[in-house]
């Protein structure tokens, strides 16, 4: 469809009477199979077409989004409407220009096995998981999704960024009626996806269910598994690493750039081009995503920019415009450590494993104080051994403090989504001390 989209885009750019024009075409297809109580309760596909037109006339901005690409006249009408909208506005004080073409971007290479994965394939995969759950007297719950499509962004400065995309996501909860276990996998190559590995990982956790106890609030040694680490990192991504928050003095980096902010063994690099990243090689303005070294050996080093924030503050865009109205990282990566899971556990005399969190939030964004409860596998560890399940816990602590209290770093680097699915990040397990538990749940 690439050539058809480019042809449409060029017709519209030629037609446009605006000073500047930006057009983004997205053709997105999603398929979701959801299962619960050992049966599929939702099974669906949808296809959406979106044409996002933005224009600028004398620094006045107008935008319109339509969903029909079958008729060029309709698209021209939409463009005219965007221009009419722009003319109604006062000049923007924050807009300079749409991004200038800097480099041609290679389209992403997509796994054809993912693109061709059918509803029957999803159902058969889910059946494997359900059969395994039943064999252990567990109930399986989960989601298997495939997302695919293509995106083209052009503007009147000659920018033309195109790429197809396609990735999958599988997750499951195993439940024995009292206790749950969870596993998930971001799928960028279907042949690498081992659904039974995920099913067994989740089942093993559900089966640690010996009289869960409630622990007292206090500071604990905690092994944060990668999904939990990604959830904490999310808040720094939103509130600390954004160029807009930084420039508006709302980021902890605003007054601490160049200073040690977390453990010196940790670095955070944003690199959407990594093999395990399902993201496009360009941002929502078509700008090539740059690799940004946000934290270097624990020292606050850099932040990410979209074009409007960059031009407003005299910086270079880093390719981090997204669906939010401010720049954010895309694919944050922490380097892996050299400790196996067994070696990490061996360092815990009395402490816990947290598999993942639920509904985390950030009541104090400047210091990145986050809170949330654990779920689907909060396990007590004594003398290096998992001994029992404990009721889920609430933590309340600055993410920067948590990342400063690192004892060891795991070698289990993996791509994972945070609970909100704001980001997909590549992170290892972290063993931390003084993790602040402020409450417990009843289960």
């Amino acid at each position, binding site marked *: 469809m690439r050539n058809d989209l480019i042809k449409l885009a060029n017709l519209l750019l030629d037609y446009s009477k605006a000073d500047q024009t930006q057009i983004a075409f997205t053709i997105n297809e999603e398929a*979701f199979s959801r299962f*619960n109580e050992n*049966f*599929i*309760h*939702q*099974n*669906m*596909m*949808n*296809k*959406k077409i979106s044409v996002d037109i933005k224009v600028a006339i004398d620094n006045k*901005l*107008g*935008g319109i*989004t*339509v*969903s*029909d690409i*079958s008729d060029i006249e309709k698209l021209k009408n939409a463009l005219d409407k965007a221009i009419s909208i722009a003319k*109604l506005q006062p000049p*923007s*004080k*924050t*807009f300079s220009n749409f991004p200038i073409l800097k480099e041609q971007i290679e389209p992403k290479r997509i796994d054809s096995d993912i693109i061709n994965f059918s*509803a*029957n394939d*999803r*159902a058969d995969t889910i*059946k494997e998981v*359900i059969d395994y759950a039943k064999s252990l007297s567990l109930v399986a*719950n989960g*989601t298997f*999704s495939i997302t695919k499509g293509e995106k083209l962004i052009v503007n009147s400065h000659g920018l033309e960024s195109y790429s197809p995309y396609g990735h999958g996501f599988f997750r*499951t*909860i195993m*439940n024995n009626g009292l206790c*749950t276990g*969870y596993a998930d996998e971001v799928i960028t190559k279907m042949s690498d996806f081992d659904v039974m590995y995920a099913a067994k990982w989740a089942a093993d956790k559900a089966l640690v269910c010996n009289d869960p106890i409630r622990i007292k609030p206090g500071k604990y040694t905690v092994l944060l598994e990668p999904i939990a680490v990604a959830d904490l990192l999310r808040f720094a991504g939103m509130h600390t690493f954004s160029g807009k928050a930084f420039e*508006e*003095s*709302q980021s902890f980096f605003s007054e601490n750039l160049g200073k040690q902010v977390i453990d010196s063994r940790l670095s955070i690099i944003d690199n959407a081009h990594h093999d395990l990243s399902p993201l496009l090689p360009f941002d929502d303005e078509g700008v090539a995503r740059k690799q940004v070294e946000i934290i270097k050996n624990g020292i606050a080093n850099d932040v990410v920019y979209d074009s409007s924030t960059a031009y407003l503050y005299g910086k270079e865009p880093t390719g981090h415009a997204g669906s939010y109205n401010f720049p954010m990282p895309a694919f944050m990566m922490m380097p892996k450590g050299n400790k196996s899971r067994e070696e990490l556990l061996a360092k815990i005399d009395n402490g816990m494993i947290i598999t993942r969190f639920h*509904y*985390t*939030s950030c*009541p*104090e964004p*400047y210091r990145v*104080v986050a*809170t*949330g*409860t654990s*779920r689907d596998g909060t396990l007590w560890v004594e003398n290096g051994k998992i001994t029992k399940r404990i009721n889920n816990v*609430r933590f*309340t602590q600055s993410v920067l403090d948590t990342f400063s209290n690192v004892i060891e770093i795991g070698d289990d680097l993996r791509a994972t989504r945070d609970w909100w699915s704001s980001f997909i990040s590549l992170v290892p397990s972290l063993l931390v001390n003084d993790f602040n538990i*402020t*409450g*417990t*749940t*009843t289960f």
Partner: protein
Amino acid sequence: MILTSQAQQLFSGGEKVKQELQQGIKLAQEKGARYADIRFIKRNQERITVSGDSITGLNQSEDQGIGVRVLYENGWGFAGLPAGSMHEVPELLIKAVDEAINIAKASNRVNTEKIELAPAPSIEDTYHTPHKRNPFDVKVEEKGQYLLDALAEANIDDKIRSRSGHIRLFRDEKYFASTENSYIEQTLLQTGGRMNVVATGKGQAQTRHFRDHGSGGWELLENMNLHSRAKILSEEAISLLDAPSCPTEKTTLILGGSMVALQLHESCGHPTELDRALGSEATYAGTSFLNPEDWRKTRYGSDIVNIDMDATIPGGLGTYGYDDEGIPAQNTRLIKDGIFNNYTTSRDTAPRFNQESNGAMIADGWANFPLIRMNNISIRPGDFTLDEMIKDTDDGVLLDVSKSWSLDDKRMNFHFGTELGYKIEDGEIVSMLKNNAYSDLTPHFWQSCDAIGNKDSWHVWGRPSCAKGEPVQIANVGHGAAPIRLRDVEVGIHE
């Protein structure tokens, strides 16, 4: 049914759409569906964003498409396809029905147990949101200037680092047909907005915001008094910079109505959704502490706590005529005299309790599978004024306006942060507080409620951002709320 002449003009349905959708239903039946519904939806949205003294964005969007849901033997299948125009619909319906049937057949590779549907009436009707002034007809200049003028009032001091806001307009034209011989046309119209100010200084940033939305026209926004509120927001944000932090203690908590709205949403609206209680949303949104065996037995709150789900409240953001299974909007008492009384249900979950659906199955547009969604979750008002509550409190805090929220996956343990806080001593507010939060277990929280604000302090707050499901769907919901008082609640951020 109230139907204004303006609403009638908005709606452009007709016999042609009805014939096409009914043809699609017939096709699904011919292909073996034992149930099918089809929705053709045209959605228009407009968002005007403002930052400082400039309009920074004016975006209009329109899309339309069809969603076909079928139940084939023991499995559901759904297909959503975009429709450029009505002319494409006949051809698209053939594709979508085929796709939905194929997906449903795939479900049958796993499913063996029969899915029962609660009865549904056969309905032919229309519903249109009553309104005075269609917000899509108001000139863009007028809308933008309205918000700019309001935010100009917030420009009171150099400490105000950021002033921003937006206006959000929403309209759905929905056409629904099902194998129950139902055909329903609806137009849902919503209007609302938000203002944010940020004050910075002394190494901190303090934010204040106001937001509200409802079903109705431009008159809703004009009645929100944004101009007078904007200056107050800035004054409060600046004051917060010098305010002491909320103490960390167990104390009496008075919650303002805006915060009660969020509390109702998170700790009553979601846990009473039956699909969550059954585990259907476990991997993402979570489940519920209100287990099926607790139905009509468990004490949820104190005797004075009565909470309704009511899709018929005039002006409520969750108000509609019919849900996406063709069930009429209705009022269901979720919590009755403090006892958990009802779940929010759908046609395929209500039979678990030998109940009929209470009409809360809603999809986000044409492209999504309907889910059980709260509509307007409201606490019934009590007798107190806010002043009376404060005067009747020896020691405590008054907190309001959501800043952050976090709950466990059964909605039992929660932690909410608020922008505004005040210390109460001997029946009087003595100081402002910042970095405010409170946390508790849901049953303890509501069981400690000993005062509820009266009718005059009750307002239906609109929240157009309820996320649920995979793929994530957004629902627009309302919450009728008044200030409430709770005893022995943990407050403060326990770092």
